[in-house]
């Protein structure tokens, strides 16, 4: 049965879009059929991170409003044939999304794919609530930083009250994805530790994505980090997160950057 996953955070800039692309690609690399859906109407970026920005013809709004067929709006990834993108509209605003329209599109996507990964816009407005509305589970993307943790807490409250599952009295499974994590700074007491965030938000940990130059490099290139640099620390962390998303019980590890001798000598100073 298809799984609808919302990638959400409340706060902007924590890594929702990067994570949507990486999780989607990692699932597809594992042989699943996947679509990543951009709900950030008016500020679409998933197309750019996926490297499909020049191939967008129709978008989610066109499909919601019946101006285009779903098959016409879906963009198949050039690297992975079992990975597709449903882009958001760049010109319209979030009011163009209707609850009934989104429900119909999600139902249609369930017929075609194993995994539907919805990239939520920041904030708690219409776009964000519609992105989570029909989800079967949620990935809450959080940085180890006070404002991000607070916003994640708020989003967890919305996931437990404003979603279809919540309204039916069902539990909404939620997973914490800690991104841009700097283990060295946490060890020095300069950054919240993994355990601190877990204790405060009390939802299970899906993965820890280390802060890494490979993530920026991947979005520069227009490729999910699991495709752009598959052996990098963040790519390995996303691959592990996906295994857990598929229900495998594996220990969460913190993949380390592989640094050369000089990197080890000077690397710490560079990030301080």
């Amino acid at each position, binding site marked *: 049965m298809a799984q609808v996953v919302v990638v959400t955070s409340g706060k902007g800039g924590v890594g929702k879009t990067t994570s949507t692309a990486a999780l989607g690609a990692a699932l597809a690399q594992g042989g699943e059929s996947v679509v990543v859906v951009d709900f950030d109407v008016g500020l679409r970026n998933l197309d750019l991170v996926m490297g499909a920005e020049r191939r967008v013809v129709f978008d989610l709004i066109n499909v919601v409003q019946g101006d285009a067929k779903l098959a016409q709006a879906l963009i198949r990834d050039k690297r992975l044939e079992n990975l597709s993108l449903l882009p958001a509209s760049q010109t319209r605003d979030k009011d163009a999304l209707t609850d009934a329209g989104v429900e119909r599109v999600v139902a249609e996507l369930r017929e075609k794919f194993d995994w539907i990964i919805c990239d939520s816009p920041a904030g708690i407005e219409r776009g964000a609530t519609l992105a989570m509305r029909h989800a079967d589970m949620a990935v809450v993307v959080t940085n180890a930083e*006070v404002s991000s943790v*607070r916003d994640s*807490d708020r989003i967890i*409250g919305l996931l437990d009250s404003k979603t279809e599952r919540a309204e039916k009295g069902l539990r909404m499974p939620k997973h914490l994805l800690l991104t841009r994590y700097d283990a060295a700074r946490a060890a020095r*007491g*300069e*950054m919240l530790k993994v355990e*601190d965030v877990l204790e*405060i938000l009390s939802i299970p940990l899906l993965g820890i994505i280390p802060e890494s130059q490979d993530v920026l490099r991947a979005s520069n290139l227009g490729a999910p980090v699991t495709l752009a640099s598959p052996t990098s620390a963040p790519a390995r962390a996303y691959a592990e997160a996906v295994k857990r998303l598929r229900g495998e019980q594996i220990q969460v590890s913190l993949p380390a950057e592989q640094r050369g001798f000089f990197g080890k000598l000077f690397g710490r100073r560079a990030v301080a």
Partner: protein
Amino acid sequence: MNLLSLFRRRDSAPVARERLQVLLAHERAAVGGSDLVAILQEEILAVIARHVSVDRDKVQIKLDRGDPISTLEIDVELPSRLRTTGTPRVGGAGQGAMARG
């Protein structure tokens, strides 16, 4: 960064952790139920207004959300001619919301 500041610097992560724990305990309570502090403030002022006229500009409200207790401090300035004894200012302090929703 010089050597001195290196020694003087305290770990900031534990401070962040504690601030978040206190803040979220309050926010989680507020989202579920009503805003108890706002209600308390209105009702306390209504009681005072029944006996003396209260100038809203001369009411100071301070809230300190803490753990394990919060304090709501309502400082009402009363016209001195209404008072028979004591100081012209009355400080009313009530305990704020601590219920977790």
